[in-house]
């Protein structure tokens, strides 16, 4: 948990010192224009994780509210 918090703080802390980047002739940021497929794959796998977390949270809600105990 501490490591996660430290990582988040470093991420947002970096916003304070972010250097200006040179843009492409059409105003696009070259660092983002370069396709990062690793990030794309990570983003895709957030989808099943979201569905699993959502279902678990539904079960938790039903139990906690007393609407369905037999889960």
């Amino acid at each position, binding site marked *: 948990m501490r490591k996660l918090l430290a990582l988040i703080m470093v991420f947002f802390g970096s916003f304070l010192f972010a250097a200006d980047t040179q843009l492409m002739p059409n105003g696009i940021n070259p660092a983002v224009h370069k396709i990062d497929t690793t990030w794309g794959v990570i983003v895709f796998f957030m989808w099943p994780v979201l569905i699993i977390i959502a279902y678990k949270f539904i079960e*938790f809600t039903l139990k906690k509210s007393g609407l369905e105990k037999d889960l």
Partner: protein
Amino acid sequence: MDHMSMIEWARAQFAMTALFHFFFVPFTLGMSFIVAFFETIYVKTGKQEWKNITQFWQLIFAINFALGLSTGIIHEFEFGTNWSTYSWMVGDLFGAPLAVEGIIAFFMEATFAAISFFGWKRVSKGVHLASSWLLGIGSNLSALWILIANGFMQHPSNAFENFNIDNSRLEMTNFWQLIAQPVAQVKFLHVVSAGYTLASIFVLGISAFYLLRGKHVEFAKKSAAVAAAFGLISSIFLAVIGDDHAYEVTNTQPTKIAAAEGLYVGKKGAPIVAVGWPKDLKAADVQTNDQAWAFKIEIPHLLSILGKHGVNAYVPGLKDLIDGNKKYGIWPLSKLAEVGQEARTDLKAYHEAKAAGDTAAMQKAKADFYSVVWSDPKLGLKLRKCDLIGYGFFKGKNPDLIHPPVLPVFISFHTMVALGFWFILLFIWAWIAVVKGSFANSTLLQKLAVLSVPLPWIGTSFGWMTAEIGRQPWTVFGVLPTAESATPIALANVQATFFMFLTAFVILGIAELKILFTVVKHGPKGAH
């Protein structure tokens, strides 16, 4: 003028079809999983009441599913009838994900929809449950492939495409880069989580409606609990991934975000306008950003923070994208248009030389066409003349044509964001009420839930408008202008089909609503 009018009618027709189609799509994306959740609870508990709940929401899902599918097919035809230049030029790239969608996701959906809708008494509980889940996964995978295709339109890159000088078409060079590009994947998650939020609000609202009327109380309490939990997770995730989406847009479509924020003069530490009314002026008439607003309330630095991940990061404005900004390496539009025009001239010269059998002239024209005009050796990026060919169409034209209109993009973007925050608040309130057992007694919350039912449809439509109007004047950003994408057909043809589709959509829309209201009025079978 006639040509432009035809394009405007073709755009109106596509927008009408897309908006009508998009009434059903997000609902299908969300309801398919909600039904799977209900059925999983039924299978785990073995209780008949959960089966009744599942079957009721499945019926509503099925009504929308049919219309969603049929309206989607109309799009495919419109690509051919009204947008044949677009289809011909980028069909290799755009068509591939659509074909995968058709072959895998569409058939997957159709197969498991049949088992899930009609197989309750024909297959085992386990097979039926698996079918419901696979239907949800298939529906969402459909969206994935469509959004990969749309991701290419929003952010084309020579990392996965190449302009073939021989046939003047964009051809795919790397399928993996096309499908795994973050712009497409972030867009996919943003759209599906919007669909989950929309479906959750619908279920919550209808459940609240029953509670207000004192009907089907146990059914409504349980449905609302599932909707509140799914909606809470989805709406929070929607905001988080929406932030990432805004980051991608800011960095890959600078004209879109500048229009969405009414930012004419680029600046470091750019603000976000929380509330305001832009005047939609010509860039040349604006010297300071304040001139461009009737009124505005800003949140300082927020656009730089969200869009560039830097408190004082520079965000280019519309004027910078027209006049250029030497400090940040942005070329004036006139220079981009000049290079684009040169690419068109090289292309023409190549084909003339080819027809004349002049190999030396062909090679020279080809070398010029593919010559590098900008590079970033550190990132391994380069722009060739051919990559800027689309800008050639804007040579000598009104420079304000290079960006989308400010007012509609600003309104649609900001309304979508505001509604997104309302949904989070509504779900937090509803979830707390569900857990405390007070949802069934909270009349105010129930009324707000009912009144909120149409809002996510407005939100998702505005989101789509932000994406598509914001991309203008391009069909493929920076590559193919909308004005050059249409089929050169007579205006009357497009007008005739426009009104034909409008009539069909009105009839289908009325029929859909009538069936929906009848089902909701009748309520679930066997409910308390």
